[in-house]
């Protein structure tokens, strides 16, 4: 079986440069770890929300990957419009980017390992650097996702420090603790309300999203509970990634281990559930009783699980969903496009990693480069 190194050698040229992104590995305080362990305790009050069921395993529809990216399939479906290089300086380096399109011509690029957020124009120009490694105001231990705020600022979730940092357009950053300890991100819903992604300590069945009134520091509602059988919850709690995209008064949400796209209103009321015809099955969670202490065995288990990563909205209103399976220090990425009723429009396995979407332009990692700041901007063929 190919190792990460040999795969990279085969697939990417120009190995003389330091190379590329992969899985994020972070050191977290015991408090956070304990909180998540508590959240895996069985059974629950799901507050009337339907749980997010983990998909059963099934027959794979994607062939085993001998290459991380199927360039033939990519070229068949996408036309590369241009390449993009994110600027690097002494203050900013792209290592393992987590990217948000701020909707105003900028890319908010979190670098958890570097402890900062870099802001780029769509031309790759570095416009600002927010934060640095540390625990003081405006500093990060492990920043995850950055989102724009309605006042023109940026808000960033730091999962290791369990807090949000608001960067106003002018003035000093403001650090705010929220009731969601394992905070991943916050999105501005307007009127001082925010959609928080993350889990709360002590919940018997973790819920991944919360409507938060910042001024009152009150959670109006928590929703999208983890919907796995009780005996698998401890395992499932290893997959905490939850992602949402706002579209006016609609929240499109996914959780890593659910092959469903959830549609909520901004009160957290479930409007619809769209099954996702993923290119490869989710895999089956181990049940209670297993003790996975060997790091390689654990990695192997991780590598067999498909995780839904994020949802993006095309100019046409169709929805793009990205999923992945980790491969040691890298991953294989799959894409699918569905319409708003959930009908499949297109899907493909082994695509380059999608970082962002702008109108109908896809911002991909450049699979021909070992450097994670080299991207491709592409458009689906036949979609002009």
């Amino acid at each position, binding site marked *: 079986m190919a*190792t*990460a*190194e*040999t795969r*990279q050698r085969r697939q990417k040229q120009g190995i003389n440069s*330091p*190379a*590329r*992104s*992969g*899985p*994020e*590995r*972070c*050191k*977290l305080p*015991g408090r956070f*770890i304990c909180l*998540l*362990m508590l959240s895996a305790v069985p059974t629950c009050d799901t507050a009337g929300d339907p749980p997010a069921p983990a998909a059963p395993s099934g027959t794979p529809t994607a062939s085993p990957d001998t290459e991380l990216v199927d360039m033939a399939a990519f070229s068949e479906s996408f036309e590369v419009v241009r390449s993009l290089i994110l600027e690097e300086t*002494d203050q900013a*380096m792209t*290592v393992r980017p987590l990217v948000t399109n701020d909707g105003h011509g900028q890319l908010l690029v979190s670098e*958890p*390992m*570097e*402890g900062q957020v870099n802001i780029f124009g769509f031309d790759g120009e570095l416009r600002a650097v927010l934060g640095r490694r540390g625990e003081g105001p405006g500093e990060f231990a*492990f920043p995850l996702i950055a989102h724009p705020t309605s006042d023109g600022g940026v808000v960033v979730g730091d*999962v290791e420090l369990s807090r949000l940092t608001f960067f106003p357009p002018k003035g000093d950053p403001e650090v705010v603790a929220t009731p969601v300890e*394992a905070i991943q991100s916050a999105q501005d819903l307007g009127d001082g309300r925010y959609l928080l992604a993350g889990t709360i300590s002590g919940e018997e069945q973790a819920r991944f999203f919360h409507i938060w009134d910042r001024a009152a520091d009150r959670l109006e509602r928590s929703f999208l509970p983890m919907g796995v059988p009780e005996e*698998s919850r*401890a*395992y499932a*709690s*290893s*997959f*905490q*990634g939850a*992602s949402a995209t706002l579209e006016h008064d609609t929240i499109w949400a996914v959780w*890593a281990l659910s092959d469903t796209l959830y549609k909520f209103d901004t009160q957290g009321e479930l409007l619809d559930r769209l099954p996702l015809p993923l290119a490869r099955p989710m895999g089956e969670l*181990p*049940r*209670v009783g*297993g*003790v996975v*202490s060997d*790091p*390689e065995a*654990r990695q192997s288990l*991780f590598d067999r699980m498909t*995780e*839904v*990563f994020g949802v993006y909205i095309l100019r046409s209103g169709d929805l793009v969903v990205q999923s992945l399976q*980790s491969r*040691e*220090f*890298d*991953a294989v990425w799959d894409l699918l496009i569905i319409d708003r009723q959930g009908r499949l429009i297109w899907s493909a396995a082994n695509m380059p990693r999608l970082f962002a979407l702008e109108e109908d332009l896809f911002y991909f990692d450049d699979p021909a480069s*070992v450097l*994670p700041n080299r991207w491709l901007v592409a458009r689906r063929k036949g979609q002009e």
Partner: protein
Amino acid sequence: MERPREAAGSLGGCSGLYGRLPVTVAMLLCACAVPGQPGGEAPAVGDPVPAVALSGDRPALVWVFDARECLGCNLGDPARTVRALQRSLGDRVEFLVVAVGERGDQDRDLVVGFLASQRISARVVVLSRADYALAFGRARLAVFHITNRESVIVAKVDSDAADAWRSPSDSLDLATYLQALAERGASAGQGMRERSVLQQQFNEGVRNNAGTE
């Protein structure tokens, strides 16, 4: 030393790979002395770095860790340090990783993959635990050995505490210290003279540096 046991039913993992976030403390591997191996004496400041060949044309940072740590969480901070040093110093300093493991090429692949994922460019040498113990004794793992161009150890730095490390004589941070070392070697006083000066300079105080051994 036994690894901490993991809670039953957990995959563990402090890895926040994409959609995954850290959960248990279980997979913590020992960042500690190699257990169960007869050992030689740990190399000290002033000794040549054992078991590996350096280029000899510039100072080096030799990063020693357990290969299994690549799948854990403990190398994140040292990796950030090395990445920053490479960014600022470029090829004025040689970067070498000594990975301790029993699986030969498998461990090499694992470490190379890890370094690539961290945007770190370094040559990798894999030593078995027995070979490591013979060369490095029961020295603590996860350490940076800083050498001059004569491959003589001039400082030992706990890789988890590199941000706080300061050189004993002139209180330089690690980046400035390495830069000074590179410049000193390039200008004059190479060879035995440099070695003698550095030995004298660091033998006096470096062993007292917190967390070095």
